């Protein structure tokens, strides 16, 4: 017999195995997560909209299907928290905005549809920054979810509710989106494992856009194995997404346990270390040491072009966001979060020439990154510069450097948005304040499985991803 509390601490793989072998029923699973959400939502503020009745109905359906021998795979019967910028048929999708407070889509986004086909179901829509346009998790309309590891700390964003809710056990896995780090930043700050897939690998159809050449859909989970399970469902060409790629069909769980022996991991010697918290840095090098013990070869690489990243990302994402939301800013600006309005308006001041210069620099940067993979198999950095900052922090000292919190959160994740490469964020320990620390491992384009394999190897040798928060 497994208690409700135990069920909410399990991974997708563990829950799936118990449901497949009928040790536990999908309805028991649903009831356990719903009960935990009932208890903790008033404290954490994870959800914009809960869909409890739908979840219970879907769990009953999963129970009947599994009972009849129609087991669809490890996502069958799994409740999923979905960032509130994914269209969900019949459940409102606010995009974190008051403007869309009553918008109820009549069709699922591609990612949600794929999850439903795999037998998973929506347990609720999770809090996001308006239009996913900030890495802190703040939202003037619906509030900022609290970080379960420190209730006075920001959860990170923009997939804030997905991060906080997965960490707190309100659901075992969630969907986020990543334009400059919005999957990996909340995962780092909340102690999760998550992948920003290669750009084009997962469909963005039905997802509120922010920046068409950066936006990426992916899972936020409690282990690399769970991220791989979810990516198996989410990955694949979709003609309804113009950025979707005709990628090779891959089983992301196959080869997950092949280890890292002989793999070369490059660590950039520039840029990353200019702004870094000492505990984050120490945990990163300990993780590299752990990977070396597992047989990987860790070496420093030189990538001076990393210094280009903030300018390229800022120019392109801000112009693209202004293109998408410019009319709204001009006509209904008073209804937007003032900080988001300013960010959109900032794009009006960037010239076309600057945008094209950034786009050309991006191609050059991507070539340099691809060239780096000629000498190493993977590239690793800390995911973020520091553990979760206080919820209202605008600036702070990070490793002795006075820096804007927003820029410090984005500086390392953006590397792999600009280059469109896959990157897996995973916990590497805890700070002296008890806050999660994190690193990211990136792979060549469409070699997402390799990054997940390295993360899984690390997690077979360490327990950081198994830590569960007590609230």
């Amino acid at each position, binding site marked *: 017999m497994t208690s409700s509390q135990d069920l909410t601490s399990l991974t997708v793989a563990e829950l799936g195995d118990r449901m497949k072998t009928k040790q536990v029923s999908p309805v028991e699973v649903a009831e356990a997560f719903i009960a935990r959400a009932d208890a903790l939502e008033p404290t954490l503020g994870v959800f914009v909209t809960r869909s409890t009745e739908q979840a219970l109905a879907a769990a009953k359906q999963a129970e009947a299907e599994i009972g009849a021998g129609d087991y669809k795979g490890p996502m069958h019967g799994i409740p999923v928290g979905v960032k509130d910028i994914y269209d969900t048929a019949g459940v409102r999708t606010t995009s974190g905005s008051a403007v869309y407070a009553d918008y109820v889509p009549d069709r699922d986004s591609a990612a949600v549809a794929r999850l439903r086909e795999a037998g998973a179901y929506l347990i609720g829509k999770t809090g996001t920054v308006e239009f996913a346009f900030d890495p802190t998790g703040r939202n003037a309309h619906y509030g900022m979810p609290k970080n379960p590891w420190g209730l006075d700390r920001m959860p990170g964003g923009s997939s804030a509710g997905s991060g906080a809710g997965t960490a707190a056990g309100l659901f075992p896995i969630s969907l986020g989106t990543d334009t400059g780090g919005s999957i990996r930043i909340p995962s780092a700050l909340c102690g999760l494992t998550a992948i920003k897939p290669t750009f084009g690998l997962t469909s963005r159809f039905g997802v509120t856009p922010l920046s068409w050449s950066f936006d990426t859909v992916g899972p936020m989970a409690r282990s690399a194995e769970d991220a791989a399970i979810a990516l198996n469902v989410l990955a694949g060409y979709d003609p309804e997404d113009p950025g979707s790629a005709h990628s090779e069909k891959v089983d992301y769980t196959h080869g997950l346990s092949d280890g890292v022996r002989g793999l070369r991991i490059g660590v950039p010697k520039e840029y990353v270390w200019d702004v870094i918290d000492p505990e984050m840095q120490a945990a990163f090098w300990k993780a590299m040491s752990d990977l070396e013990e597992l047989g990987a070869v860790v070496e420093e690489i030189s990538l001076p072009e990393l210094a280009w990243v903030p300018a390229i990302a800022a120019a392109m994402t801000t112009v693209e966001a202004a293109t998408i939301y410019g009319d709204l800013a001009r006509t209904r600006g008073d209804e937007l979060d003032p900080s988001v309005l300013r960010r959109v308006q900032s794009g009006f001041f960037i010239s076309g020439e600057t945008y094209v210069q*950034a786009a050309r620099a991006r*191609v050059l940067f991507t070539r340099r990154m691809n060239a780096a993979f000629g000498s190493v198999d993977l590239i690793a950095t800390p995911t973020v510069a520091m553990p979760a900052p206080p919820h209202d922090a605008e600036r702070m000292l990070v490793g002795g450097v006075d820096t804007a919190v927003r820029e410090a959160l984005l500086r390392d994740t953006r590397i792999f948005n600009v280059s469109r490469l896959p990157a897996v964020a995973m916990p590497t320990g805890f700070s002296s304040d008890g806050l999660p620390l994190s690193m990211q491992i990136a792979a060549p384009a469409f070699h997402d499985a390799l990054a997940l394999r390295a993360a899984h190897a690390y997690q077979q040798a360490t327990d950081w991803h198994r830590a569960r928060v007590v609230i």
Partner: protein
Amino acid sequence: MLDISREAFAAWAASVGVKGDAEHMERLRGEVQGMMGRLAHLDDIDVSEVAPEDAGLRHEGGVA
């Protein structure tokens, strides 16, 4: 940080159709100044090996 005077910013903002109360405009001015400071680094990058028409939405080096 790049210094843009209030007067210069007000004129620039008007030319791109942005208006708002004094507090909003002052915060926007700070944000734009910071952003322009960051974007200035783009001018230091020699992008001559990438033709403008090659800078569109496509994958570099992937299998797609």
